[in-house]
């Protein structure tokens, strides 16, 4: 996750409280999802960004996970997410993110 976004998330967590936040990703590939999840739960694994050493423990979902997609109104889902859901393999990301959430 780039440093600019890490900085914004840190500020929002200070403002609203991390327990009131949820991060929703839109990654196209599983590669990188684990690092995203680790960054906002345990802290920046590269120890270089604003979230280095900051364990916010914010739950992370992917927008195409059933738990999220199922809450989006059908018309929006068909218009905006259906095509992506055909080309993006969500299962490996679901496994990684579910495991991350269970550790919180």
């Amino acid at each position, binding site marked *: 996750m780039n440093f600019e976004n890490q900085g914004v998330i840190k500020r929002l967590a200070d403002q609203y409280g991390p327990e009131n936040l949820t991060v929703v990703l*839109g990654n196209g590939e599983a590669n990188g999802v684990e690092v995203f999840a680790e960054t906002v739960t345990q802290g920046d694994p590269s120890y270089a960004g604003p979230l280095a050493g900051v364990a916010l423990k914010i739950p992370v979902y992917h*927008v195409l996970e059933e738990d999220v997609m199922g809450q989006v109104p059908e018309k929006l889902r068909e218009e905006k997410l259906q095509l992506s859901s055909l080309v993006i393999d969500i299962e490996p990301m679901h496994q990684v993110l579910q495991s991350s959430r269970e550790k919180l």
Partner: protein
Amino acid sequence: MQKGKKIIAIGERDGVPGPVIAECLEGAGYEVIFQATECFV
């Protein structure tokens, strides 16, 4: 996903972009407080 949480949407250029995530989650009744689109090259 728990209702009532404030959403931070981090999309990806080659996946689902931030504005699309935000639109969908707002449609589902969530408050989106930040959205961005990252780009991996």
